[in-house]
C-alpha cells in the first residue's frame, strides 16, 4: 500500500486521473455541440435558420437528441450476431475517445510547486499511438457492419475498411515528413519545437494538405462518406442500428472530427503556441508573479489551441456542405495514385532540403519543381475521346 501511495505521488496519479476525466468531458461536450453546430452551419450555408426551437438559438438541441437516443427502443435483428452487434459501436466510441487523450492541449500549470501538464497520456511515442488508434478505428465499423447480417451494412463496412486502410498510408507518410524535421515521436516535443510562430505548416504545406485530406477520409466525412452513402446504401454500416448504439456510431464520428482537428493543430498549426507568446508571458509574470502569471499564460495557450480545434471542426462542416461525394473509383484513385506518390515526393523533397542546409527555401523550391513536373505530365497525358452527353 505504501508503495502505491509513493507511486501515486511520483506520477501525480490523481492529477492525471482528473485530467483524463476533464479531457473526456470536454471531448464529449464539444462533440455534442458539434452536432448542433453542424446543423447550424448547414442552415446558414443553405440560407435557412437551422435548429432554433429547443432553447435560445436551438442550444438545447443536443440534449434533446441525447434524450431521444436514451428513450428509443433498441432492437437487435434476429439474424444478427448479438455480441458483435453490441461490440461494434462500443469499439468505435472507445477508439475515438482514446485518440483524444494523447493530445497536448496546453503547457504546464504550476500547482503547489509542481508542473502539471495539460495532457492526459504523455508517452514519447505519441505519434505512433495516434497512428495505432487510427488503424484500430476501422474495427468498430467493420464488426458492426458484418454482425448486422444486412447486405447494405456489409457493403458499407467493406467500403469503410478499404477506404480507411488506403488513406492510412498517405497519412503515415505525411507524418514522416514532419518527424524528419522534429526528430521526435512525442507530440509535446513536436508542439514545443513550433514555439511562437515557427509553425510546421510553413515547412510542410503539401504534407499538411495530404494529412487533412486523409483525416477527412479516416473520419468518413463528406466527400469521403461512401461507407454510409445514403443514396446507395440506405444507412451504410449502421443501417440496422437504433437507439444508443446508433448514437455511439454518430457520436464517434464527431469525436473523431475533434481528435483529428486537435492532432492537425498539434502537428501543423503550432498547438498551443501563438505569435508573441513570449511577450505575453513576460508581461503576465511581471504583473502577477511567477506562479499566477505562468498559469494565466497557460490558459491563454489552451485558448489558442481550442480556437484552432474549433476552426478545424468548422472546416470539416464547411467542406461537407460545399464538396459533393466522390465515386468509389475516384476515391481509390485519389488515395493510391494521387496522395501516396505525392507523399513520397514530399518526403524526398524534405530530406534533400534538410541536408542542403536551407530548410525553408529548399522545401518551397522543391515543391515548385514538383508542381512544374506534374503540370508538364498533366499537359502531355494521353487523352481519351470524351463521350458527349445528350447529343
Amino acid at each position: 500500500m505504501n508503495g502505491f501511495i509513493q507511486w501515486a505521488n511520483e506520477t501525480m496519479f490523481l492529477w492525471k486521473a482528473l485530467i483524463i476525466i476533464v479531457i473526456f468531458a470536454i471531448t464529449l461536450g464539444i462533440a455534442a455541440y458539434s452536432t448542433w453546430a453542424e446543423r447550424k452551419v448547414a442552415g446558414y450555408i443553405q440560407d435557412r435558420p437551422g435548429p432554433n426551437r429547443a432553447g435560445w438559438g436551438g442550444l438545447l438541441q443536443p440534449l434533446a437528441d441525447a434524450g431521444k437516443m436514451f428513450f428509443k427502443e433498441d432492437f437487435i435483428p434476429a439474424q444478427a450476431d448479438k455480441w458483435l452487434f453490441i461490440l461494434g459501436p462500443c469499439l468505435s466510441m472507445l477508439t475515438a475517445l482514446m485518440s483524444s487523450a494523447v493530445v497536448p492541449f496546453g503547457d504546464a500549470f504550476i500547482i503547489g510547486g509542481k508542473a502539471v501538464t495539460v495532457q492526459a497520456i504523455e508517452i514519447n511515442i505519441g505519434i505512433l499511438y495516434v497512428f495505432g488508434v487510427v488503424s484500430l478505428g476501422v474495427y468498430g465499423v467493420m464488426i458492426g457492419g458484418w454482425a448486422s447480417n444486412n447486405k447494405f451494412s456489409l457493403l458499407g463496412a467493406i467500403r469503410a475498411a478499404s477506404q480507411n486502410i488506403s488513406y492510412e498510408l498517405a497519412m503515415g507518410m505525411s507524418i514522416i515528413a514532419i518527424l524528419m524535421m522534429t526528430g521526435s515521436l512525442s507530440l509535446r516535443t513536436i508542439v514545443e519545437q513550433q514555439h511562437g510562430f515557427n509553425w510546421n505548416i510553413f515547412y510542410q504545406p503539401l504534407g499538411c494538405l495530404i494529412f487533412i485530406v486523409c483525416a477527412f477520409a479516416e473520419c468518413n466525412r463528406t466527400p469521403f462518406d461512401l461507407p454510409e452513402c445514403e443514396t446507395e446504401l440506405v444507412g451504410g454500416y449502421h443501417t440496422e442500428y437504433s437507439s444508443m448504439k446508433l448514437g455511439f456510431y454518430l457520436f464517434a464520428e464527431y469525436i473523431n472530427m475533434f481528435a483529428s482537428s486537435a492532432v492537425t493543430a498539434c502537428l501543423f498549426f503550432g498547438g498551443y503556441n501563438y505569435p508573441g507568446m513570449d511577450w505575453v508571458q513576460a508581461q503576465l509574470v511581471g504583473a502577477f508573479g511567477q506562479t499566477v502569471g505562468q498559469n494565466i499564460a497557460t490558459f491563454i495557450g489552451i485558448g489558442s489551441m481550442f480556437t484552432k480545434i474549433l476552426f478545424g471542426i468548422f472546416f470539416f462542416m464547411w467542406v461537407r456542405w460545399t464538396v459533393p461525394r466522390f465515386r468509389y473509383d475516384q476515391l481509390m484513385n485519389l488515395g493510391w495514385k494521387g496522395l501516396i506518390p505525392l507523399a513520397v515526393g514530399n518526403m524526398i523533397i524534405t530530406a534533400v532540403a534538410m541536408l542542403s542546409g536551407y530548410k525553408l527555401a529548399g522545401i518551397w523550391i522543391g515543391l515548385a519543381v514538383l508542381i512544374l513536373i506534374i503540370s508538364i505530365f498533366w499537359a502531355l497525358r494521353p487523352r481519351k475521346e470524351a463521350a458527349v452527353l445528350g447529343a
Partner: protein
Amino acid sequence: MEYLKNILSLPPIYYTFAILSVLTLFGALGTVMSRNPVHSVIYMIVTFFSLSAHYILLNAQFLAAVNIIVYAGAIMVLFLFVIMFLNMKQEAEEMKKEKIIYTAVITAVILGGILIIFLRRAEREPVNPLTYNSQSGMIEVLGRSLYGEYLLPFELISILLLVAMAGAVMLGKREAGERHF
C-alpha cells in the same frame, strides 16, 4: 503459507506480468476454441494487445506500437476480409472430425514439450544492472543500428516486400472478361 507470503511480497510488476499472461492465454485459447471465425479474430486482437503490453513491460515501446499497427491494425483487417469472403457463417463441418482434433492435440503436446525442454536447457544471460542500457528498446537506438549496422538485411526486406507484392498480384489475377461484384 511461506509460499503465499512470498507471492504477496512480489513487486507490482510481477502482478502486471501475471495478469497480462493470463489475458494473453485467454485470448489465444479463445482464438482456437471459438466456433465463429469472426469471434476468433477478435480474441486474436486481444492476444495481440496483451502481447504489446508485454513488450512495453520489456521496455520495447516501438515494438509494441508496431505490433499493434501492423498485426492488430493491418493483418487482422485482411483476416476479416478473408473470413467475409469465405462465407464461413455456417460452422465448418470438417472441424468436427475427431481425427483432426486428436492429431492437433498430439502435435501441440509434442511441440509444447520440445519448447519447454529447450527453454529450460537454454543458457540465460542474467541482466547486469551496471551495463544494462535502458534506452536499448527506444526508437533512436533502433534506428541507428538498423540504418548503420544492419544495412544489408534492411535493404533485402524491400526485395522481400516486392516479391510479396508480386504474389498479391498473382492471387488477385482474373480471367479476361470475368467480373465480380
